[in-house]
């Protein structure tokens, strides 16, 4: 076992030299302990002794300002969406979002609910989904290892897309929540996007 893991480490040396930043980020994911919906019941056993998420470098933190992994655990009501957006905007970049359970994907069993948003990726960018109702804690680790692959290949770029298409996201957020009480995160992006569209069109 030790021999095998030693071999793996030597294989990774190339990656460490190539992009040390990526390697550092992927092995220290700080998950935001944000209780959305019923999926949060899976998170305490995941982060504590039974499944011990720290083996994968995932550790829960108290505030969004210290986090870079956002697990949306379960259905998102309109009221929760407001605080999800606020928390997401407070997280430092690079930040990764994972939708946990079938409800953030397409509404799940709340598909005809009057107060639950159906597609989370209309409001904030999502890097990966875990399907299931509920997913087991093992699924969190599968998601984390997939996220490692995405970070390695430079595909986990949700936060860059949020920067780029901020005006569209903000428009969607205001459609559902009405007037937002906080100022736009990227104030000049809207003009930039319009000018980009003019050049492209």
């Amino acid at each position, binding site marked *: 076992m030790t021999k095998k893991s030693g071999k793996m480490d030597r294989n990774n040396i190339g990656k460490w030299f190539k992009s040390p930043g990526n390697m550092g980020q992927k092995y220290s994911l700080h998950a935001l302990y944000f209780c959305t919906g019923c999926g949060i019941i899976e998170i305490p056993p995941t982060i504590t002794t039974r499944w011990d998420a720290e083996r994968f470098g995932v550790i829960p933190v108290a505030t969004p300002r210290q986090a870079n992994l956002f697990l949306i655990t379960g259905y998102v009501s309109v009221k929760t969406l407001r605080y999800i957006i606020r928390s997401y905007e407070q997280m430092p970049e690079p930040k990764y979002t994972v939708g946990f359970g079938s409800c953030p994907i397409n509404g799940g069993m709340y598909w005809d*609910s*009057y107060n639950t948003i159906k597609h989370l990726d209309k409001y904030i960018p999502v890097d990966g989904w875990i399907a299931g109702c509920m997913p087991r804690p093992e699924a969190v680790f599968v998601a984390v290892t997939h996220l490692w692959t995405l970070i390695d290949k430079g595909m986990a770029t949700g936060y860059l897309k949020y920067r780029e298409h901020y005006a569209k996201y903000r428009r969607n957020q205001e459609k559902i929540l009405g007037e937002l009480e906080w100022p736009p995160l990227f104030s000049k992006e809207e003009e930039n996007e319009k000018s980009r569209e003019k050049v492209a069109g």
Partner: protein
Amino acid sequence: MKNPGKKLQDELRSMFESISTEGDGENRMTVKCRKEAVITMLSFLKKTGFDHLALISCVDRLNDNVLELVYILSSYGGDVAMQKLNILLKTTIPRENPQFYTATEIFGNASPYERELHELYGILFRGHPRLTPLFLEREYDIPPFRKDFDTRKYVKDVFDQIPFVDDKKGRT
């Protein structure tokens, strides 16, 4: 006392007109009464020993065109037989422009239940100290827990109208 419900039934019948009671009186007793008698009956039941208001619930009876209010009472004081008994006090109010008197004077914990019913069924509780929004973030034309609120249509009109944020490479 073996069956507290029987004695209570007789007492209620002697005190209030036009009420009907159901149930065996051991575990659950349903009392239906006119809406004028509800507040009096709640204070009478509280004095009798049913000092805990567990829930105020509402049923939308679309066919009868009424809203049915259900006050669920139980007892912490009294003897063991009485503690086993739950009382469901039911009354009906008209569906159009529904109004009712608040029970907060008798049971203080009626306040959040009445705020909830105000929000989800549109019932105006007169005399309530603070009838402000409790749960909902958006405003609805019809209160969303009423039977004539079409959730499917609402989802199509509101949530499905919001576009996906598309990239040139595809959906983000």
